[in-house]
């Protein structure tokens, strides 16, 4: 198959002088939005105690541990701004992402020991479940940096119990073990109760000499049978026991290395724990990338920075998606699947870091006089029509057969509507696409370049595809909502307007409500809201899209559960004809 992949047709073109001139403002606006997002990321990084205070105790912070552990230049953070329960700490208190350790991709997650010594907080288990799901989807190790003081007790009702509560990750760790996916844990500090299970539920435990893990910690074992109240006598007893357990907490290395042997390794130095993890990661099963690559890796021919000029932040402005994609693929090459059919969507094969990947993306703008063929109105990119849906269904199915990971790019206003669209079976074809995705067993990632809207957000590989979507990224231009806020205001209040008008009442109060609803939609669809609520897994700068694509593709091909020999692939042959 070398002739198919080594040199694919080139696409894209250099920016022209006029294009550079007129897109200066767009570039500045996107960079300004990215700077605001970066400020929010800094707040999360600086949550809790300052680094100096943690270091003065002889401990590293989670960020320092990550920096030491992860191969330079490979860290792709996820969920940094995720805070679905709106914690006052500004974080779910776990930091996670994709990164390489000893040359192998892993999902890496650690408690932020600067914030309440790594306590369980509301929303945290949802964050952890995203990390365990990612590990499962990509079939790559999950590496924990445990340092968990247990539940933030005043908020326990918000996260302790329930189907996806703080105990669910322990079952997920067991599930990963069941699937043959290693979960490694470097363990630091005091880890009582929930922290104890965070420590014991992984497969191999690497302990720091001062750490402890236990069913219950000092706080619990120093308690006593409830008397219904506290008095001076009980207070004195508590003080005495608390002093003792602070000095000699349960579950120290003397117990769990010397006695139970739960700790496979113990290290004198904090960095020793991380060296232990690095050493183990080098032993994890992983293909040499050469096994799966279809060509030598190559950067895109055109600079990724061009995307700041090619993607208009103004939502109504059309653009050329193919030009953007050409900034993201090896040597700006591709093999387009069924060009000309279903022109509102791009489908094609590309190379990312030498690996074969499939891309699907919304094209924008006017689609020509005779499209969609079933209606007498003009077709516009961003919308989905019959041909586009049929083409994507075919493409996804063939990718599933050929085991090619899919990278989706969304900028969609939805699926075409009206009786003509219904007759063209768009409702059925949308659900068929969900079925087609579900029938595959290949990892997918999504970048919501600009708009994710209506059911198209689901059918275009959105995060609702739980078993397939590894992660979803947003950009400074991202907006996600069921429909545009003004459309929603009309849908909600149009009948009311008619009623009020017929009753001879003033319309202004209804108009005010319509404006309020539209504003509410604006506030609740922007990148920071999407990141906080988890509609996307991370907002990234335009010039890092390629980096995440490389991480995704490299991770997907590290140890795939199923492979298609290159010479048995059918999709490239269908494209060639």
């Amino acid at each position, binding site marked *: 198959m070398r002739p198919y992949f080594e040199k694919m047709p080139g696409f894209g073109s250099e920016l*022209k*002088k*006029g*294009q550079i*001139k*007129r897109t200066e403002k767009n570039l500045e606006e996107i960079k300004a939005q990215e700077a605001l997002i970066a400020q929010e990321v800094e707040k999360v990084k600086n949550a809790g105690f300052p680094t100096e205070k943690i270091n003065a105790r002889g401990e590293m912070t989670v960020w320092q541990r990550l920096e030491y552990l992860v191969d330079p230049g490979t860290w792709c953070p996820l969920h940094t701004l995720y805070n679905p329960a709106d914690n006052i700490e500004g974080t779910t208190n776990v930091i996670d992402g994709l990164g390489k350790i000893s040359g192998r991709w892993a999902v890496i997650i650690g408690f932020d020991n600067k914030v309440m010594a790594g306590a369980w907080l509301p929303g945290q288990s949802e964050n952890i479940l995203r990390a365990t799901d990612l590990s499962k989807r990509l079939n790559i190790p999950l590496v924990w940096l445990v340092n968990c003081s247990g539940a933030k007790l005043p908020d326990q009702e918000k996260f302790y119990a329930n189907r996806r509560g703080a105990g669910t990750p322990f079952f997920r760790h067991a599930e990963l073990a069941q699937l043959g996916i290693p979960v490694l844990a470097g363990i630091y500090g005091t880890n009582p109760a929930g922290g104890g299970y965070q420590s014991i539920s992984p497969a191999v435990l690497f302990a720091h000499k001062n750490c402890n893990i236990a069913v219950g910690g000092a706080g619990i074992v120093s308690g006593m049978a409830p008397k219904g109240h506290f008095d001076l006598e009980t207070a004195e007893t508590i003080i005495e026991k608390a002093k003792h357990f602070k000095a000699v907490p349960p579950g120290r290395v003397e117990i769990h290395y010397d006695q139970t042997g739960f700790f496979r390794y113990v290290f004198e130095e904090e960095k020793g724990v991380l060296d232990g993890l690095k050493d183990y990661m080098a032993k994890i099963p992983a293909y040499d990338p050469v096994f799966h690559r279809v060509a030598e890796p190559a950067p895109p021919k055109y600079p990724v920075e061009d995307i700041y000029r090619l993607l208009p932040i*103004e939502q*109504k*402005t*059309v653009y050329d998606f193919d030009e953007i994609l050409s900034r993201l693929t090896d040597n700006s090459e591709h093999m387009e699947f069924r060009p000309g059919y279903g022109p509102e969507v791009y489908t094609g094969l590309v190379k990312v870091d030498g690996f074969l990947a499939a891309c699907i993306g919304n094209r*924008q*703008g*006017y689609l020509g*006089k005779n499209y969609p063929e079933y209606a007498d109105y*003009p077709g*516009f990119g*961003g919308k989905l029509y019959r041909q586009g849906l049929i083409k994507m269904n075919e493409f996804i199915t063939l990718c599933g057969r050929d085991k090619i990971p899919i990278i989706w790019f969304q900028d969609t*206003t939805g699926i075409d509507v009206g009786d003509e669209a219904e007759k063209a079976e768009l409702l059925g074809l949308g659900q068929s696409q969900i079925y087609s995705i579900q029938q595959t067993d290949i990892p997918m990632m999504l970048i919501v370049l600009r708009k994710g809207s209506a059911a198209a957000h689901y059918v275009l590989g959105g995060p609702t595809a739980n078993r397939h979507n590894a992660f979803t990224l947003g950009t400074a231009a991202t907006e996600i909502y069921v429909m545009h806020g003004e459309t929603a205001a009309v849908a909600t209040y149009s009948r009311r307007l008619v009623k009020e008008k017929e009753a001879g009442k003033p319309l202004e109060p209804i108009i005010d409500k319509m404006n309020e609803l539209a504003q509410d939609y604006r506030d609740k669809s922007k990148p920071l809201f999407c990141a906080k609520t988890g509609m996307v897994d991370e907002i990234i700068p335009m010039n890092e899209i390629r980096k995440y694509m490389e991480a995704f593709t490299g991770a997907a091909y590290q140890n795939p559960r199923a492979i298609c020999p290159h010479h048995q692939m059918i999709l490239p042959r269908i494209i060639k004809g």
Partner: protein
Amino acid sequence: MSEEILAPLAGKIVKMNLQVNQNVEEDDEALVIEAMKMETPVFVPCDGTVKEIRVKEGQDVEEDDVLAVIFNG
């Protein structure tokens, strides 16, 4: 030699950036057409001078209508 700027689609002119006798460069944004809630910018095809403008903001146009003429020597 002159080059015509044609409407790539039917819609309403919502922005006109050109003035007669103005010097323009290839790929300057000439005007914007709105259709189906989306704005499609139309770009100047060559370096030159605006010789003629045949439409104004707010006007509806049909696909392939001549919107402006650029004189490029």
